[in-house]
């Protein structure tokens, strides 16, 4: 029996816990993408915020669409 160590042992996640981890992932994608794309860095927070909102909204719409297909497709 060994003690739990960060970066060595995995953490236990629930399915819904995993879904919340999408937000930091979207934020990281948004930050890196906008960092290389935008002209002025001072506009970075605003641009990232909008991009993350677009991504999350797109994911929610996609998931709702797929759920509808799964539930009601004959």
């Amino acid at each position: 029996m060994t003690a739990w160590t960060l970066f060595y042992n995995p953490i236990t996640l629930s399915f819904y816990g995993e879904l919340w981890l999408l937000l930091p992932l979207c934020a990281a994608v948004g930050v890196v993408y906008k960092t290389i794309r935008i002209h002025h860095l001072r506009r970075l927070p605003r641009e990232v915020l909008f991009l993350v909102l677009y991504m999350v909204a797109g994911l929610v719409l996609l998931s709702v669409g797929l759920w509808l297909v799964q539930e009601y497709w004959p």
Partner: protein
Amino acid sequence: MAKQSKKSSPLPFLALLLACAVPGAGHVYLGRVQRGIIIFLTISALFWSGVAIGGVFTMDPVQERWWFVAEMLTGVHGLIGWHRQKAAREHLESVEGDSPDEKMEKEKIALVTPADTAARGYAGVAGLLNLLCTFDALMLSIMGVRGEPAPEDEKRKQKAEAARS
């Protein structure tokens, strides 16, 4: 003040090498220091968050080869993760048990669903983001761009001066 100049052209190979090895280093080499630091911090945080979620076997070249390839695109982070994974695998050989899976269970390092998806997703996406940044640094260096882009009004002035001369 904008510092964009095309006088001393950067070396594309060096930009490529630096960007591959350390996330953001390609941009720092091109004079885009702030962008390089942001890229480094974001990609590092994403990769190590993945390893924190999934543990040492987030990087597994044996069972998850394609995720491993994506994770290795983070450069130095991938190398550290791979080295730690190899050390853990060597340690497992000294643990009593019949199969590797049983040994991993005993050491509590077996990566199971749903943590494996999140962990490898984070670390793999970090690698793919670094690939994007590497491509950007390479393209900028091929175009001979150094430093931050000039502000719009300054660009207009430069164009007007060029038209006058």
